């Protein structure tokens, strides 16, 4: 049935239809980039192109597939839930939403007490920003330059102008951008005590995972307290055990006022996002609980998927494996780097959150193409294409890590030659 609905005579014709009916620029971009990928089957950390090519997925849609594609336990949970539930009615208290909220709060940094649901990360960021504005009665939002928090109305304004200006959605008067790792600039932005919140990805993903300098986030937290702004931790990409802790922000000893999660929270099976808020920030939930409505926000099937995902993620065995995987891959990548020190210039790593730096303004695009040829799918950083996002999964086996490193070493070497020869890989 499904196959009949989505069958095309050939990959070429499918791509043509994609250009015609879906997104011409994006479709063409990948063809031109040497990554003509149309994903068909998927299982664990493997995705298969419609023509059968197997790829190890270390993009994982920013951690959406932390537990692998189509994790059997998540499938079982959602399948079971579908015998009884659907997305539910967002106005009423629900079994699944309540159970997930309780599970999220019980595993969250202390001080976060309520959960508000969205259907995706952007909506969740909008909820977080609206919540901060309500709590502080201030409008200004401070974020870091090259930040990425999503594409919805408020979220897009916090991010890079590439995505905001095109749609006339940038609002420089209300959304202030300061350079990352610059506490002086942050203080300058907050000094007027007119900011509702600072929103920070714990490690900015789309900017290539530049690591916060020692003390930076802690300093931002202190500045927020000093100047009456809330601290919003965007943990969409850094949360869910990717750094060896459930939430990366806890590695900094920071209790945020608001924490946002999405992507991997529901195992890639049914979208849901969540905003965890402190009691002090949660006032609107008591004042007017209907103030933010979302038909699909906290869809019950998504909540069941998320409950299962969270339960798996919190198993002590998984955390232990994250330590092992990050140690093995970190060591392996440093060995590759030692072979090409002038080309492969840096490894930014915090657990399984990794950015690989290359000595060329578009370096990661060369590497991405060679990785694709060699059976690995990883994406360049949109806002800093020197850096490849490298995001292995939580359940990688020793064998798969070994295979991955073999492929990566070859691809990085080949990409160096591509970049050196100056050939445009597009």
């Amino acid at each position, binding site marked *: 049935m499904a196959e009949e609905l989505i069958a095309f005579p050939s990959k070429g014709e499918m791509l043509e239809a994609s250009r015609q009916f879906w997104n011409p620029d994006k479709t063409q971009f990948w063809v031109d980039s040497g990554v003509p990928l149309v994903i068909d089957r998927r299982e664990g950390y493997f995705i298969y192109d419609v023509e059968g090519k197997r790829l190890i997925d270390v993009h994982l849609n920013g951690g959406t597939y932390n537990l692998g594609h189509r994790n059997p336990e998540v499938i079982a949970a959602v399948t079971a839930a579908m015998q009884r539930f659907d997305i539910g009615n967002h106005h009423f208290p629900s079994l699944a939403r309540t159970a997930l909220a309780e599970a999220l709060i019980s595993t969250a940094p202390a001080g976060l007490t309520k959960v508000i649901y969205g259907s995706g990360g952007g909506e969740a960021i909008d909820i977080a920003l609206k919540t901060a504005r309500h709590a502080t009665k201030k409008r200004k939002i401070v974020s870091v330059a090259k930040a990425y928090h999503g594409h919805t109305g408020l979220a897009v304004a916090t991010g890079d102008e590439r995505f905001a200006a095109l749609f006339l959605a940038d609002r420089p008067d209300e959304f202030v951008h300061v350079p990352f790792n610059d506490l002086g600039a942050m203080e300058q932005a907050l000094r007027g005590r007119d900011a509702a919140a600072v929103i920070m990805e714990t490690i900015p993903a789309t900017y290539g995972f530049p*690591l916060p*300098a*020692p003390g930076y986030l802690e300093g931002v937290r202190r500045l927020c307290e000093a100047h009456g702004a809330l601290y919003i931790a965007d943990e969409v990409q850094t949360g869910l055990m990717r750094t060896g802790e*459930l939430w990366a922000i*806890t590695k900094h000893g920071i209790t945020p006022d608001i924490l946002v999660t999405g992507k991997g929270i529901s195992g890639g099976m049914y979208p849901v996002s969540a905003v965890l808020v402190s009691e002090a920030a949660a006032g609107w939930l008591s004042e007017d609980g209907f103030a933010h409505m979302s038909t699909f926000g906290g869809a019950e099937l998504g909540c069941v998927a998320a409950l299962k995902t969270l339960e798996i993620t919190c198993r002590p065995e998984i955390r*232990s*494996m994250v330590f092992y995987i990050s140690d093995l891959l970190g060591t392996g990548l440093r060995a590759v780097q030692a072979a090409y020190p002038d080309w492969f210039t840096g490894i930014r790593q915090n657990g399984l959150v990794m950015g690989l730096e290359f000595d060329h303004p578009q370096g990661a695009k060369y590497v991405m193409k060679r990785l694709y040829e060699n059976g690995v799918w990883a994406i360049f950083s949109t806002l800093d294409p020197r850096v490849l996002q490298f995001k292995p999964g939580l359940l990688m086996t020793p064998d798969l890590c070994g295979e991955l490193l073999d492929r990566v070493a070859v691809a990085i070497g080949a990409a160096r030659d591509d970049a050196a020869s100056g050939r445009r890989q597009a």
Partner: protein
Amino acid sequence: MTPAAEEGMRGAGEAGGRPISIDLLTDPAGVPRARAMLQRAQWAARTFGEFNKDTVDRVVHAAARAGAAKAREYAEWAVRETGFGVAEHKVVKNLASSTGLVEAYAGHDYVTPRIDPAAKIVEIPRPAGVVLALTPSTNPVATVFVKALLALMTRSAVVISPHPLARECSADAARTLAAAAEAAGAPDGVIQVVDEPSVPLINALMADERTSVIVATGGTAVVRAAYSSGNPAIGVGPGNVPVLVDGTADLAKAARRIADSKSFDNSVLCTSESVLIVTEAAAGTLLRHLKREGCHLLEPADRDKVRDLVFPGGQFDTRFVGKDAAWIAAQAGIRVPGTTRVLLAPFGLAVPEEPLAHEKLCPVLGLVTVPGDQQGIDAARAVLRIGGRGHSAAIHSASAATVMAYGAALEVLRVAVNAGSSLGAAGIETGLAPSMTIGTGFFGRSSVGENLQPGHLVQWTRLAYNNDPAEAFGDFAGLDPWTAHTGPVPPYPVASNLRETSPPAERSPVPVMTPAAGEPDSLRAEIRRILIEELRAIQRGGLGG
């Protein structure tokens, strides 16, 4: 119903409606978590397999000492939890199975490559990897100690699935060893334990491709399941130990050794004597000595009461496992002296329909009197036809010829000579490998014919040079492929820009989901009850080990 379904639908029962079909779910409860343990063990084993001898020794000694330090606590706990055995005797076993075991193998090396210039062969030890250890209810903690320490000595990771009746003490013992091993530098996850063992869970783990080898101590059903799993297995079957006393034996010593052995830990060891066979010439004197040692000879009527009690309908009742003699006598409604520690139950012929000729994991000892040595050997063979093939036997004799004839005739792979069988066949009072896991070999449908020992968990990569004398053998002196390790393995994932500047952070505990988000307690209790019933049913197929 999986926890997932439960989590999502907590309270659905009260709301009424159709329960969610179990057919939709992939794995029974607890299995996914246990599979994650195997994968973590795979990671641990991968690292552990590169440790050098000094590091391994440090880990092994630390774990053994931690176990020995709690030998008494675990002995008492095991008796309390299972109702089997004698705490004082379990202390002995726990010590023998921890520091005693390590001392016994002090001179052995399962880590460093062996070089044989004459054969022009270098042998590099290669650990099994992930050992799945099934441990019994009768010797719970001692078996956990042995299997965990053998894995550590040979650089494997071990996942222990304890018998449900001894779940808590076994799990705690495993955690004690794990904590000590990891504190001494062993990789994280090198010893893990399943908290909620069940039949489907054990079956799933046994068949999992991440399991390198199964070491199964338990009933026949579990051992057969291990061999049927598709994975390499070391399984050991039940015993049914005949002990022969001939006219040349020192009868006073024989009586004391038999009484001590049969009463040791109330006879829960599978190496414990089951049927005493004595020649007519020795019988009178031996029985007098046995009486002095607290062995009460049952009159025929009392014998029948005990037989009917312990073997209702001809089947051994596991309620009597590891119970003391006085209690069993009282249950049978017979009077025995207060010093009684063994009930001697005479019968005529060792044949299958005679319950007393079967394995009895309690201090009831069958007694058969025979005209001479050859008839004694024949009787012992008859006992082993009924059960315990490949396991153990004992003999008390001063005649080497009789001992040789006995050993050559019986289908067993160890004979304790002039020693109690319980601790003799288990290598504690003899030169055999000290172990509560007794290989029954081909006689007993097992791949291993020795007492379980470290060598069973290690294989060797052999570098074999051309035997042409013109081809020189390599100079391997001083070459060690393994490395010393200090500090936690794996290291805490510190951000790369902090690696040089900050000490590794402490490992914080994993946040635990609230019980409310997991299975409801009532459901959990119900599942446990069903599983324990299933296990009991399996157990009735034989409790050996």
